[in-house]
């Protein structure tokens, strides 16, 4: 079912500079060349009946309902497949057309159940609508012929009697298929299918998974998932595109079946990944009926993945805590308190800590999951309220090298393009990213472009899905050894320089000449020839040369990268190496090219923009910069500290040596997501006041002294900034379950600390951000409402935002090539730890999993597994599904094995979505030289078959059980009706 508020124009929008004028039903209409007659009519308010056409998909022309008459042409062409032509004269309603359409509908309805009144699509069923539109009054064939509707049919004659239950000779109907309810989020009821193939085409064209087919021909044809599997067992990734496209109730959301049709719709933004899909939350009062991706969403154009569309149940999960709680020690039960008590407690504790241990003994951590406004307030609380710069964000552990590397080379800590830029890309280079799993909607857009002919280079130790997927095959897959990104990029640079593939014109106009000369000499050293590096990188020289030539000479080249680039000891160096390649080949500053970091969480870009790093004010301005500091001092009314504060790992170190005592953590689970878990939990245990603000009692909260219940993205107003620098609105669709939006909680804490904050609405916070940040001068909630979304910089110079950056010159003026020496990581394999462990994520789960684990998404992934190559498995006597111990120099954990050819020998892989897996018990304290972003992607390990959990897991379980019982004790002691009061 399509959105309840969008108008469906039937066929996709045509883009053309030429306009065509034609006449439809006597109205003169002008539309871009390439528009279908159907769409031209719809834009003029003339609705031609249709069933197999929808704007989501290319026209197909199978239902024959949209026929029209065109003056001077014979027959009745389908308006969905007929493009407009100048001077056409079209009639959409004639007696003959009415007759044909009624005939078509009569046939459809003769093979369709007549249970409209109890059907979930009732009210928004296109079949029902069309029956009404064409004026269908009778079905002359009756309903007793061959059909897909009834499970059993009479053996031979006497069918009428059979329907009325009077004969005994019933046999199974070969055309009938039962309902498939295997998918947790939607059902498939073939008896209602009209074989329009919208679902099949949605899966092919929009999602690119090719999971559905139409089997059989003519009347026999039916929709099937993969080889006639249940949906859950098929290749289906549950994106829901087919459900949205289906004009009948055949594919329906289970939530729609349960709740009935929504009555209003609110536009908001997905809170999962950095694609930042725009959604219409279809509501019944304060209850969500379903989420439908917004056709006008600039990042997603009406598509979504399983997480954003379906996995929102966590927001109403019973595990959510909705009352503030405090305790003196983590061995005590929690005490439920009023909000006022909680604020006063934190205020007095933090003041006590600062009085006893000094101004710098406390700090805060913001999250990439929070809105811009929330993040801004937390850093303001730290800088202005605490009077120090001890604020950091979880982007520290994912994309901090992006900020550093792109700022150093091009002058701005952000990706250079919008997603749509890929439509003009000829060569796509994906390095250390897995877009089809981690950024699914952009992954689908990328696949569309690749199917349309763009070339593909993948640099990744694993054979990610993109390397080989229906109708796509990578031209080059450089399957490098983990930790050798810089080496491989340097060899590509070597080829580009030594084979004369540099775009000298671009470099001369746009880049610093000395830096270029130095770089070009640097990468031309013999040691960086692909032949010399082969042994270290594991990539054949031939492949490197081919890939480098293709990227440099194949037309518009665009680089997409992810955490496989940043989460390394040389993360920042790799980002700079990527920027160097783009500059050297002139692949910067226009559509179709660029350097594009794919951000993990929804608001990684925003949390960085908002001044979450200890050394920078909002807008990436250093705290030592006098003019900027004075600006903020004036606005905030207090003197501000001019030295960088502590980063997250520094805070842990400082806590362990006793100088850091209090931490305010908003929406972040450092005990699960940061490396070397045992080190982190030791640091948390050493603090006197840990305040956690979250939806759930997460791993960090188990070490907390104060718990402040936060609000989900459905319960507050604000903005998120996606990987394209696109600022989109998050809109409140229901009241906060615990009483306060997160920004209000931070505001109350500031007041309790004696620092005044008095915002009445999140929009006022954005107004302050805009006033103080040059790249945001033009941003306001009103402006975003007007434009739908806006990409910063948005200011006087760019009132409508900036899709492509560095167009005429780089933000820093001239582009600067940086030297990128390859330094092998300290994490080396040896006899004791002979394998390399690398980590990643999968489609259905999100990050530490706190949200997705509390949804039916666990049906696709209910535990983290260790992927291991058959050769390594055999050597160790490991079979699929065996329990295996994974030991590094940091610690040991136990997971089940998954023997897989996707791995290369010597490399094992796991995800980190379940806390008990303890993936971070094994990761080490190695980190990026420039930003301390942890080296999650490379850990030397040994893997052995075991029969019981690791010591850490046993301790973890015991501790978790104890914390759960401390929580239960407090809940039992507390009357339920004080919940959420205040």
């Amino acid at each position, binding site marked *: 079912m399509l959105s309840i508020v969008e108008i469906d124009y039937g066929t996709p929008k045509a883009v053309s500079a030429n306009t065509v004028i034609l006449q439809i039903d006597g109205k003169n209409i002008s539309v871009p060349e390439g528009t279908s007659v159907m769409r031209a009519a719809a834009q003029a308010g003339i609705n031609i009946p249709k069933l197999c056409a929808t704007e989501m998909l290319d026209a197909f022309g199978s239902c024959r309902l949209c026929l029209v008459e065109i003056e001077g042409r014979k027959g009745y062409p389908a308006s969905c497949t007929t493009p407009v032509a100048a001077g056409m004269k079209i009639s959409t309603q004639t007696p003959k057309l009415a007759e044909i359409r009624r005939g078509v509908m009569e046939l459809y309805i003769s093979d369709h159940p007549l249970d409209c009144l109890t059907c979930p699509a009732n009210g928004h069923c296109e079949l029902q609508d069309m029956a009404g539109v064409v004026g269908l009054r009778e079905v002359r064939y009756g309903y007793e012929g061959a059909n897909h509707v009834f499970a059993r049919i009479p053996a031979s004659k006497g069918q009428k009697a059979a329907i009325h239950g009077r004969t005994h000779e019933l046999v199974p109907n070969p055309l009938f298929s039962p309902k498939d309810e295997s998918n947790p989020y939607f059902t498939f009821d073939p008896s209602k299918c009209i074989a329009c193939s919208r679902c099949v085409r949605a899966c092919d064209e929009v999602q690119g998974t090719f999971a559905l087919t139409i089997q059989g021909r003519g009347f026999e044809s039916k929709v099937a998932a993969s080889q006639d599997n249940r949906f859950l067992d098929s290749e289906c990734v549950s994106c829901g595109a087919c459900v949205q496209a289906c004009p009948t109730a055949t594919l329906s959301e289970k939530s729609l079946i349960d709740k009935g049709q929504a009555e209003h719709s609110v536009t908001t933004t997905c809170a999962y990944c950095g694609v930042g899909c725009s959604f219409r939350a279809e509501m019944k009062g304060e209850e969500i009926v379903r989420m439908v991706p917004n056709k006008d969403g600039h990042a997603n154009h009406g598509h979504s993945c399983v997480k954003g569309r379906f996995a929102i149940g966590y927001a109403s999960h019973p595990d959510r805590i909705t009352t503030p709680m405090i305790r003196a020690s983590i061995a005590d039960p929690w005490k439920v308190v009023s909000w006022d008590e909680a604020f006063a407690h934190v205020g007095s504790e933090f003041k006590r800590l600062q009085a006893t241990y000094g101004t710098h003994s406390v700090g805060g951590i913001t999250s990439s999951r929070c809105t811009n406004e929330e993040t801004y307030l937390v850093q303001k609380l730290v800088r202005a309220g605490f009077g120090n710069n001890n604020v950091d964000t979880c982007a520290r552990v994912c994309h901090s090298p992006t900020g550093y590397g792109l700022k150093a080379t091009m002058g701005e800590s952000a990706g250079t393009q919008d997603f749509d830029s890929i439509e003009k890309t000829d060569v796509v280079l994906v390095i250390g990213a897995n877009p089809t799993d981690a950024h699914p909607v952009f992954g689908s857009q990328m696949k569309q472009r690749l199917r349309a002919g763009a070339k593909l280079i993948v640099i990744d130790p694993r054979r990610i899905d993109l390397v080989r997927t229906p109708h796509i095959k990578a031209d080059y897959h450089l399957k490098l050894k983990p930790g050798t990104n810089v080496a491989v990029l340097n060899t590509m640079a070597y080829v580009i320089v030594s084979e004369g593939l540099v775009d000298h014109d671009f470099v001369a106009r746009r880049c610093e000449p000395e830096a270029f000369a130095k770089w070009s000499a640097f990468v031309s050293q013999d040691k960086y020839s692909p032949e010399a590096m082969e042994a270290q990188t594991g990539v054949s020289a031939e492949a490197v040369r081919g890939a480098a030539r293709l990227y440099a000479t194949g037309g518009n080249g665009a680089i997409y990268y992810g955490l496989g680039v940043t989460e390394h000891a040389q993360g920042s160096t790799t980002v700079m190496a990527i920027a160097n390649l783009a500059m050297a080949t002139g692949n910067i500053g226009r559509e179709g090219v660029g350097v594009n970091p794919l951000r993990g969480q929804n608001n990684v870009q925003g949390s960085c923009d908002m001044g979450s790093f*200890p050394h920078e004010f909002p807008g990436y301005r250093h705290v030592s910069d006098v003019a900027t500091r004075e600006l903020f001092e004036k606005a905030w009314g207090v003197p501000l500290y001019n030295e960088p504060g502590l980063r997250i790992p*520094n805070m842990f*170190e400082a806590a362990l040596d006793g100088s850091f005592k209090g931490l305010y953590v908003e929406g972040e689970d450092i005990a699960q997501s940061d490396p070397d878990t045992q080190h982190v939990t030791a640091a948390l245990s050493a603090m006197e006041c840990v305040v956690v603000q979250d939806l759930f009692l997460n791993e960090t909260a188990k070490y907390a002294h104060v718990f402040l219940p936060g609000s989900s993205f459905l319960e507050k107003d604000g903005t998120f900034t996606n990987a394209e620098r696109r600022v989109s609105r998050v809109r409140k669709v229901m009241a906060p379950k615990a009483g306060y939006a997160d920004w209000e909680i931070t505001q109350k804490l500031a007041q309790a600390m004696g620092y005044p904050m008095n915002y009445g609405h999140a929009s006022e916070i954005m107004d302050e951000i805009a006033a103080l940040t040059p790249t945001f001068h033009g941003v306001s909630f009103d402006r975003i409402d007007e434009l739908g979304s806006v990409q910063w910089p948005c200011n006087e110079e760019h009132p409508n935002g900036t899709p492509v950056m560095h167009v005429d010159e780089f933000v820093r003026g001239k582009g600067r090539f940086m030297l990128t020496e390859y330094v092998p990581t300290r994490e080396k394999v040896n006899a004791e730890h002979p394998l390399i462990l690398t980590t990643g994520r999968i489609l259905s789960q999100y990050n530490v999993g706190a949200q997705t684990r509390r949804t039916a998404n666990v049906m696709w992934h209910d535990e983290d597994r260790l992927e291991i190559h058959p050769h390594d498995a055999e050597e160790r006597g490991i079979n699929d599904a065996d329990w295996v111990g994974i030991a590094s120099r940091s610690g040991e954990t136990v997971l089940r094995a998954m023997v897989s050819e996707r791995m290369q020998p010597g490399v094992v892989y796991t995800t980190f979505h379940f806390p008990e897996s303890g993936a971070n018990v094994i990761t080490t304290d190695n980190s990026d030289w*420039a930003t301390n972003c942890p080296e999650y992607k490379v850990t030397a390990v040994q893997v052995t078959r075991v029969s019981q959990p690791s010591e850490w897991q046993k301790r973890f379980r015991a501790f978790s059980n104890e914390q759960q019982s401390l929580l239960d004790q407090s809940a039992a002691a507390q009357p339920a009706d004080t919940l959420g009061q205040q």
Partner: protein
Amino acid sequence: MHIERLITMANDIATYFTSEPDHATAVNGVRDHLTRFWDPVMRRQLKTFVTEGGEGLLPLANEAVEGLNVPAVLN
């Protein structure tokens, strides 16, 4: 803080700048990085360590830290 950790971090930074052919630029690069990104307490601790001998630091890191600016008063 654990001085070993600070030494490792400083050495990592110095290692990046080792490929810089101009020595003065390399030293400034390390020093500037420490000044812009390190909390002053960490800078002071490392500087004290260097005045006491600085064993374990790479020569480039050592040189950079010697001229490192550390605010006189920390509260």
